[in-house]
């Protein structure tokens, strides 16, 4: 059904009927300041609210609490395309109440189960409450705020402690103080403020604790660990070299691996597997269990590529080594597996992430393979192409055509290419999606559709460096990894994840600087580290009022 692609497409084609090709370029034009050695920094001094995922991670690491209280928070909206980009979000009353409720429950459990830990190892007896309280105020607020508390903050927290302990004793005093800490801005927000200098336009160098948080949240999605706190406290976290050293260390942690998995799932939209639905009339074998298997395969595949193999884009986009269980094995035509185990997929059919069932199932409609969605997503997410929407009259014209179910998906969508109005933009999209036609709407391989052989020939147009014909998604992947436009797009995606905000044209130079060090044969963990040691990470500029 050709029209099924129009919602997505509507967000992407040419505005005002102007020819699409000329507009399908990267929309980055910068002011041209700075030098290659010292890219201009355009990241404002700011506070970044913990995202729901980060909140859950932080209470796990701070309190050992795995109850995931943020699952009942409001469902944030993120402007950077990643679930750590809450920089634009304030706290509405509904959310302030959620924070209050969560803090009360967390504090209750913490004093019941981890009191001595909260008190920095002090074991309370009837005679040492004051000692233990002092120990608490010396240790816990620093970890919770991810920096030393200010005297004013400690004063207020002591006030809460006094009030509550007078009412209900020592433990209630500690519990209530924990509630206040968990609702305080220094807990809920990550500060990236630094101390503005009097020169250089008021540019601010972030302080060691701010850097520790920035590094830790980027790499692990959570608060700094003890070693990172120690480095900040001892003055061993100030330079790019320091950050690289700590970054390398953190990348070995399980939290970092989990966090990078999140980056890939969100970049490639495979995080949608957890809620994906298909029309059972078309895909009766698709269900939540199969979707979970698809997601598990990708988890294992991402880990394997990054940490057990070369860790490059080339590996990610061309490897046929993967993992499957019995459930997913049926879809892949792989037998003899039980539980999740390593497999080599047929290299003639499945090379790289773009050929994995989870990726293909997400980038399909509920009832068909949707070449338009596949083409649009690839152009947007992998090539960072700006495709403005179609003029309204073109849209109406295209919608009037009734689908013919006796045709193959490719034949139905080919009307786009034959209609000159549609073709002006769809020539950039559909021929990319057609290259995926050997995979149906749940990612199963097929050689025929509607009794006709599958035609998986595709064409890439309007790119900077990989225009031309290809056959099948595997060959498309081979083309992609040769493309500088693709590599630069990956850098932009990493920027959004690292900085928690969408890039603007002002960030062009900083991005170009990082891109110049990156290729399809660079370890992706090294790309992560090149952000860590870039000036983007170290400095902020004053917010324009």
């Amino acid at each position, binding site marked *: 059904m050709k029209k099924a692609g129009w919602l997505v497409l*509507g967000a992407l084609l040419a505005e005002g009927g102007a020819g699409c090709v000329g507009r399908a370029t990267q929309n980055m034009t910068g002011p041209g300041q700075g030098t290659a050695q010292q890219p201009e920094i355009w990241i404002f001094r700011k506070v970044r609210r913990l995202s729901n995922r980060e909140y859950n991670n932080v209470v796990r690491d701070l309190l050992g609490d795995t109850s995931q209280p943020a699952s009942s928070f*409001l469902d944030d909206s993120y402007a950077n395309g990643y679930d750590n980009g809450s920089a634009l979000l304030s706290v509405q*009353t509904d959310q302030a109440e959620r924070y209050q409720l969560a803090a009360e429950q967390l504090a209750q459990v913490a004093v019941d189960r981890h009191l001595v830990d909260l008190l920095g190892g002090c074991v309370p007896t009837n005679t040492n409450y004051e000692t233990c309280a002092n120990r608490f105020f010396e240790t816990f607020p620093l970890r919770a705020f991810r920096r030393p508390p*200010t005297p004013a903050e400690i004063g207020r927290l002591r*006030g809460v402690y006094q009030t509550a302990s007078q009412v209900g004793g020592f433990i*209630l005093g500690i519990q209530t103080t924990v509630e*206040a800490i968990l609702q305080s801005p220094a807990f809920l927000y990550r500060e990236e403020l630094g101390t503005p200098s009097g020169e250089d336009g008021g540019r601010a160098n972030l302080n060691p604790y701010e850097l520790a948080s920035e590094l830790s949240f980027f790499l692990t999605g959570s608060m700094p660990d003890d070693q990172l706190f120690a480095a900040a406290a001892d003055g061993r976290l100030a330079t790019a070299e320091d950050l690289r050293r700590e970054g390398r260390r953190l990348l070995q942690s399980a939290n970092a691996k989990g966090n990078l998995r999140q980056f890939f799932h969100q970049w490639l939209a495979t995080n949608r597997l957890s809620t994906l639905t298909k029309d059972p009339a078309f895909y009766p074998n698709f269900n939540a269990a199969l979707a979970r298997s698809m997601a598990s395969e990708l988890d294992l595949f991402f880990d394997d590529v990054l940490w057990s193999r070369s860790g490059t884009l080339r590996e990610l986009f061309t490897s046929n080594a993967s993992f499957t269980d019995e459930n997913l094995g049926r879809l892949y035509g792989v037998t003899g597996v039980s539980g999740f185990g390593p497999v080599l997929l047929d290299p003639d059919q499945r090379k790289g992430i773009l050929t994995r069932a989870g990726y293909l199932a997400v980038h399909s409609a509920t009832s068909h393979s949707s070449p338009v969605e596949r083409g649009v997503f690839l152009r947007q997410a992998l090539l960072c192409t700006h495709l403005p929407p179609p003029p309204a009259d073109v849209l*109406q014209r295209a919608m009037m055509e009734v689908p013919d179910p006796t045709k193959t998906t490719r034949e139905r969508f080919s009307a786009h290419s034959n209609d000159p109005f549609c073709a002006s933009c769809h020539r950039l999209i559909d021929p990319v999606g057609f290259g995926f036609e050997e995979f149906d709407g749940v990612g199963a391989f097929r050689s025929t559709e509607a009794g006709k052989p599958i035609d998986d020939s595709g064409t890439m147009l309007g790119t900077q460096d990989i225009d031309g014909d290809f056959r099948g998604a595997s060959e498309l992947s081979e083309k992609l990894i040769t493309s500088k436009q693709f590599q630069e797009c990956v850098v932009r995606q990493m920027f959004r994840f690292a900085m928690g905000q*969408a890039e603007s044209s002002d960030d062009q130079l900083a991005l170009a600087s990082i891109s110049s060090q990156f290729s399809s044969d660079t370890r992706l963990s090294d790309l992560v580290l090149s952000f860590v040691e870039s000036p983007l990470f170290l400095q902020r500029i004053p917010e324009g009022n």
Partner: protein
Amino acid sequence: MPAQTIARRRFLQAFGAATFLWPLANRVFADTGTRQKRLVLFMQNNGTQQVNFWPTTTFNSRILDPLLGDPRIAQKTNLIKGVYVPRDLHGTDGNEHDMGFARMFTGERLLSIGGKPWGGGPSVDQIVATSWGIDSLAMAVLTSAVEPHPKPGYDHRKSFVYFSAGEHKLPLVDPFIVYQQILPAVQTGESARQRLMLRRSVLDAVAGNLSDLTSVLGADERRKLDQHLTSIRQVEVRLSRSLQETQVVCPRPTQPRDYTHTAPELLINNESSLPELVATMIDLGATALSCGLVPIVTIQFGYGGGKWRFAWEGIDMNCHDDVAHLDTGDGGGSAINTERVVRMNHYYASQVARMAQALEAVPEGDGTVLDNTLIAWSNEQGRGDHSQRNIPVVLIGKAAGAIRRGGQLIDQGDQVFNRLGCTILNAMGQPVEGFGDATTCGPFPGIF
């Protein structure tokens, strides 16, 4: 106070249901007998079916029959034809869904954040809420079997309500949470009093820490934390009121199921309880409005550009791509498709009518709550094929006398969409000449 007693009795008779002593916690009005204004916004996606929406010879239509078939509601209803949103994507990669969704109630041009189309200013309900110093109740039913969210790159379609440019007010999607919020547990006894005292002590410390941080920030970041501080104060206000003895008599709605913890899929990708979710939210909203617990309620039917299947209306298809998009002329597309679009829109009308009738049923002063309310129901598009002409605008209620006319179709040519916000602000007591990016557009003609 005999007058109040009588009013209260009539009030309770109108509900004809079990009543309950509500804590004063959330009450924002001095008394339900005052002529306090209320505002309700409904946001719908995917356009209407033009020929079957607008009345012709009589003041009724197939789609609007749930509203206009009730003479009490019809006489308090104004329909405005000719509303359009100028085509302006403002450098974003959005489309007509976004032009309507993010602009209709903000009046502003789209704001590009990484190329995505976000609202460019506060929505009208938040402008009013800020001026009244109160919180609104924002609700939405977002579940979708065809297109569950989050869908990367489409977070801008999650809420049409904005605190400020690019900054959503997020809707509550679980009626159980709404219920808990408007009906908090009654606090009695010494231990409860003590608990509340401690909570206030905690919030005071939090507010102090927020103020410290705010003082070192630039204007944008400061505004964000100011909003947080305002929210803390709102929580404090509720706490302190729940300590007071005074309570208001109000009907107790049925407690909804706890969707988040018992059946989260019903809030995400399963539409089998969708009509129940919508109806429950409307009923909770109507109760909160009638009892003076909340003066502003916003309800959003799905994501911007949503893809509901309308199985409960016997359609059970992707009603965005496979139905609304095929409505390619004012007269409709194929007969069967036109019938589907009519049924979808008739459903929306029935839900707006549910709210209007609930407010009409509650006496207040010398009229009803609806007389003190303005319900504004609009749409992101005029037609499902993305036409931005004749976007439906339905205004119901008298806004405490501000709106004098009713029972009419206002069909006076093109009306720029900014007039909707301008009309709402004037009805709510803010005499403005424009709204959003149209500073002198004035309100709709023939309303005031």
